[in-house]
């Protein structure tokens, strides 16, 4: 059952900003990998942290739970966290669970 392309994560660091690109399926199977990858980035208080979902095909409640954990940790660190390029099928789940206003830039600036 090894599928190397099931889930991929790539981090791009720009000046003052760290962008994490995830692709494939973010579910229970890869939750440990995702949590481990995000843990050190959450602590970078002097940088904006963004998660780009452009190539994400699927997310489950475990994946949404990880976003909640990151959001709370960043909030505790008083550091910004946003999620960008959310595909429509995933956006629908975010709206349903109510996480959207917490992770989209537009609403944070209001």
């Amino acid at each position, binding site marked *: 059952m090894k599928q190397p392309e099931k889930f991929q994560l790539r981090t791009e660091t720009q000046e003052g900003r760290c962008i994490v690109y995830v692709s494939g*399926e973010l579910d229970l199977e890869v939750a440990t990998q995702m949590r481990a990858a995000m843990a050190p980035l959450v602590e970078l208080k002097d940088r904006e942290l963004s998660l780009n979902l452009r190539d994400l095909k699927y997310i489950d409640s*475990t994946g949404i739970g990880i976003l909640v954990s990151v959001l709370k940790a960043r909030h505790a660190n008083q550091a910004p966290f946003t999620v960008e390029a959310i595909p429509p099928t995933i956006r629908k789940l975010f709206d*349903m669970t109510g996480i959207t206003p917490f992770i989209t830039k537009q609403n944070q600036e209001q």
Partner: protein
Amino acid sequence: MKATDELIKLQLPASAEYVDLVRVTLYGIAAKMGFSYEEIEDMKVAVSEACNNAVLHAYGNHPTGTTSQAPEEQPRMEVRFIKKQDALSIVVKDEGESFDALAVARQKSPMHGKSIDQLTAGGLGLYLMQALMDQVEVHSDAGTEVVLTKRLVRSEDTV
């Protein structure tokens, strides 16, 4: 089940790495029945959530599901797809300890109107199942059985 219903049954290890196999199977069955892309996406999420619960029960909340147990001793889950005239029911059954469905249901409507400090990372699974399916039943006897049903609205019926 009625005589006209058709049954497709999957028996698989209660392990996170098999949940995507259930999604692929669901896609094949639901597409053949004539469900829309959006309906299938909804069902994929709901069925995966039910399978996640089965995996988490089986492994006492250690989600990666790798154990040193012999294959015949590893926990298993069963997924039954019941094709009806006007609906698809998916039954996900595990052998783990029964979970308190009512306690989970009380965590519904997780983040609307809350502050960041009030958010919790868990408890979204059952909420999503109920939001995405037409009917959700949870039976807890020996293990837990979740029955998810989506009605099929055929275009010729809407004339």
